[in-house]
């Protein structure tokens, strides 16, 4: 709202004149500089913070990736010897253990991200569409749906840790003791099942966001479209395919991108679930890089892996934005 007012020239000018009557009396040049400079001045705090919070650490990270940074130098990392591209070459030698482990972790992360984002989107959209209809208790249900999103991550995930425990966990109690679906109690926090445990928690935590965004998107679709479609004899499925999903397209494009980036980089969930070192089957790249940096104290290699990850995400995001914007242009035509 504010942006719209500020962007339109006339009200903006009026505000400047009103708020500083002194300036109108001064030389014309000062007024112009003020008019041109003010937006930049207002942007300055954000720019400075952006610089400090993102750009400076990023540059430091890139410099670190070219250094031989181990425990011998962390106290004064500037003195660490240059390593050239050694850290990068270790990370991308996929037939050597470090590179092999990184590649494995990368594929685990891709599989995990695709499944998690897909399920989050599917459940979120289904719930949002379902909640469009008016029924008793809709408000309560809507609030309940948002609980996982509102809970502090640590508290939520640690509760899952208790539930996933082999001996006393609720999951095994239900699956094994009550429903008799498994021959014996399964391990969820170690071994191969860890992947599914991680996926479950991730989807549980992520779908309410998708639900929220899709629900907001649905509010913008005019009801007349559905009425007209219904008159033309379109069923629910056709309405969904022909009206709802195409109308949600811009919302979904942003939603999927945000979910992808969040899930791909998720550190909290695996770290709280598995601790400093995750089982092989759930070795997400964020924890893998953390392990390289802070557990084996190879900060240089960890930084190189981070830079590689950043490049990958930049390429994916760029390609995605390009594809989706091209799609939109075609649609506009």
């Amino acid at each position: 709202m504010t942006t719209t007012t500020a962007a339109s020239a006339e009200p903006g000018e009026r505000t400047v004149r009103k708020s500083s009557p002194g300036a109108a009396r001064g030389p014309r040049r000062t007024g112009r500089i003020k008019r041109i400079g003010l937006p930049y001045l207002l942007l300055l705090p954000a720019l400075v913070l952006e610089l400090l919070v993102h750009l400076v650490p990023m540059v430091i990270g890139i410099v670190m990736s070219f250094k031989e940074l181990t425990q011998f130098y962390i106290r004064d990392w500037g003195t660490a010897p240059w390593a050239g591209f050694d850290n990068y070459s270790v990370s991308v030698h996929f037939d050597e253990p470090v590179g092999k482990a990184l590649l494995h972790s990368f594929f685990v992360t891709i599989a995990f991200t695709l499944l998690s984002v897909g399920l989050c989107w599917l459940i979120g959209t289904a719930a949002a569409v379902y909640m469009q209809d008016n029924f008793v208790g809709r408000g309560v249900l809507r609030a309940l749906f948002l609980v996982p999103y509102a809970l502090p991550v640590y508290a939520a995930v640690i509760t899952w840790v208790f539930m996933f425990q082999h001996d006393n966990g609720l999951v095994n109690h239900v699956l094994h003791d009550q429903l008799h679906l498994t021959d014996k109690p399964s391990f969820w926090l170690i071994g191969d099942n860890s992947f599914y445990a991680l996926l479950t928690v991730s989807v549980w935590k992520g779908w309410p966001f998708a639900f929220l965004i899709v629900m907001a998107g649905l509010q913008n679709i005019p009801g007349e479209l559905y009425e007209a479609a219904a008159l033309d004899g379109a069923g629910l499925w056709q309405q969904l395919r022909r009206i709802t999903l195409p109308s949600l397209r811009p919302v979904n494009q942003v939603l999927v991108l945000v979910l992808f980036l969040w899930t791909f980089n998720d550190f909290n969930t695996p770290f709280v679930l598995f601790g400093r070192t995750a089982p092989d089957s759930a070795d997400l790249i964020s924890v893998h890089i953390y392990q390289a940096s802070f557990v084996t104290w190879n900060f240089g290699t960890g930084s190189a892996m981070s830079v590689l990850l950043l490049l990958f995400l930049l390429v994916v995001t760029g390609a995605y934005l390009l594809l989706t914007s091209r799609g939109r242009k075609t649609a506009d035509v």
Partner: protein
Amino acid sequence: MRRIRAAAAGAVTISLLTAATACGGGSSSGGSNASPKTLTYWASNQGASIEIDKKTLAPELAKFEKQTGIKVKLEVVPWSDLLNRILTATTSGQGPDVLNIGNTWSASLQATGALLPWDAKNFAKIGGKDRFVDSALGSTGAEGKDPAAVPLYSMAYALYYNKKMFAEAGIANPPATWAELIADGKKLSKGGHWGLGAEGSNASENIHHAFVFAKQHGADFFTSDGQADFTNDGVVAAVKQYVDLMAKDKIIAPGNAEYAQNQSVSDFAKGKNAMLLWQSAAANLKSQGMADDAYGIAPVPVQSGTPGTGTNVNSMVAGINLAVFRNTKNLDGATKFVKFLTSDAEQKILNGAYTSIPPVKTAQTDTAFNSPSNAVLKDTLAKSAAALPQVADESQFETAVGTAIKGLFADAAGGRAVTTASVKAALEKAQQQMPKK
């Protein structure tokens, strides 16, 4: 306008300068007396909970304040966070004045240069190096260098066994060899009870046991010149023997593979497991409601014969060291505090509370440490314990090999075969994860 611009420019400059200095890390040589009246102390979590530690330490810190006028701000840090916290403090240069470290990390933290070296002059300020037991001094830093820390509490592993469960199973004496332990364990593993407890997902705990088994196989994880050597036959056999207690001998419950929060101590206290290999567990067991006379304490088994030096080593030299952060703003106060905590009187009080053994010779001879349980621990420390490798990459070794063993336990629990080849492969991967030299 000009004022706003000047203020903005000022803010940017100050922020950038702050960032630049923060990035520089703690490069100063440190150790001043700029704040002589306060100290920050990071204590490791020794008791059954952080609250119990605070209660134990508070009166002692009050005593120190009364004596010296120096106020000590205490923070008890859980073990799982301690190494990371120290590492962060090292990087930023903003750490506590005095801190506890696990003694096995001494050489690794020494290599960062963040801790004050204990040369002859510094030792003289706390009564001299000779006051401390040799085995405890063996875990204070790399050989040939001034120690990076001073021993505070000494501990050793022992075998804790449930007397009632042993009597019911018709076992008269605690096992002295692994073969006996396995035989006894099989008799005890029935009806929801198990012979032995373990912490399969705790990397450090895994390392401590693997180290002892390796010693008993006449093997080491590092060569004499400090190179990682995780795949030699002795080490592979040692790790396999340890994991086989669950995989082949089936005297450890599979669920123990995911234990990392001392759940095996609770299981023992509740009578779920009949035996426990633990270091100085008495205080912990008592706080969990197990009566002192409900369990017995025996030396950790060996392959054959009786515990001793060489291949009959049956414990690592466990313990906590006290270090001074090199960047301290109260060097004199920090030294006084170390002197206070390692004084005979405090050693008796604190080691008594934590049921550990004082590493200070004069305090160790006190009658309070002559109980049968302490006798086993003292004897082990004196005759059959060895210090973990004092190499700069010790902490990485703990994580890499400890995690490899965690994976092997996961295999055992999940019913996958644990073979010599699979053990060797896991250790090979761990070795390749070690920093290259």
